[in-house]
């Protein structure tokens, strides 16, 4: 046996053994590092999803709590707004009503003309051709009896032949008329109170809306 070549062979064998072990160790560490990175990445992904979910749940919970608290505040704001708006509108309406009542009180030509128009309108609103007009005062009854033929003529000019008479009974109202068909099946309330109510509920809001659109 050649001692020196045997020694070389043995060393080479030992080197190879050693090299393989080192390579295996290196691979084990690299694999572990890769696996560790994967674990962290997955954790980050899971954490992100959990965070979003928990955050959303928490926000929803908090919002619900706060909305309850602030809903009352918003409601109060809207209530104050409605009260304030109503005050402003009511002040105009009150001035108009005052003016109307002053005209009614005078019973001058302006009111006579008004009574005629209100009567014509009320009669025209009914389908009936036999109508009774109710007034609010003796003075109105007198006026209406004087102008009843004008009322009938005006209705007739508008294409409706009708029999109209003034009722003896009086209504409790400030002015205007209530038209009732003789058979009592239909009526049209054209008293001032009814007209004021219509103005308040329908006409004035529409006028204000149109003005607002024009202005802003």
């Amino acid at each position: 046996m050649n001692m020196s070549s045997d020694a070389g062979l043995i060393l080479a064998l030992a080197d190879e053994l050693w090299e393989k072990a080192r390579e295996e160790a290196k691979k084990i560490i690299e694999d572990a590092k890769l696996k560790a990175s994967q674990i962290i990445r997955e954790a980050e992904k899971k954490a992100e999803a959990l965070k979003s979910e928990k955050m959303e749940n928490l926000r929803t919970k908090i919002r619900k709590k706060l909305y309850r608290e602030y809903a009352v505040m918003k409601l109060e704001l809207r209530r104050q707004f409605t009260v304030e708006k109503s005050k402003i509108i009511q002040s105009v309406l009150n001035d108009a009503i005052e003016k109307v009542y002053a005209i009614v009180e005078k019973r001058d030509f302006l009111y006579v003309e008004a009574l005629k128009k209100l009567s014509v309108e009320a009669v025209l609103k009914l389908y009936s051709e036999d109508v009774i007009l109710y007034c609010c005062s003796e003075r109105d009854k007198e006026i209406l009896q004087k102008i009843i033929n004008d009322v009938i003529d005006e209705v007739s000019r508008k294409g409706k032949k009708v029999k109209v008479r003034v009722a003896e009974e009086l209504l409790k109202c400030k002015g205007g008329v209530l038209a009732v068909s003789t058979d009592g099946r239909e009526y049209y309330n054209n008293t001032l109170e009814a007209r004021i109510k219509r103005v308040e509920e329908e006409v004035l809001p529409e006028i204000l809306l149109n003005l607002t659109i024009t202005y802003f």
Partner: protein
Amino acid sequence: MAQVVSSTDIVLKFLREVGVRADEVVEEARKEAENIIAEAKARADEIIKSSIEFNEKEIEEAERKKIEEDVEKLRAKLEKEIENLRKIINENRQELIDRLVKIMLGHGDEYE
């Protein structure tokens, strides 16, 4: 009595020692790998744990601020509406009253 050791024995012993040492290196690597994985798992747990820890008060404050801004917007909008209504009515008051009087008395209007 002295034992006679042959050169083959010496070689085998040497190779066995190298083998043992090589196994030790691999074993150390395995232990290190286990540590790496264990550390990664611990870190992953921490990441997940910290992700579900929130400062609830901070979030509430942020949400409260948003809603308060909404309320303020609503207040400003309603105040503006009132201001506009006041302006319209003030600038047209007499005309408006006359128009309403006419309508109430049946003297007609485009709304009739």
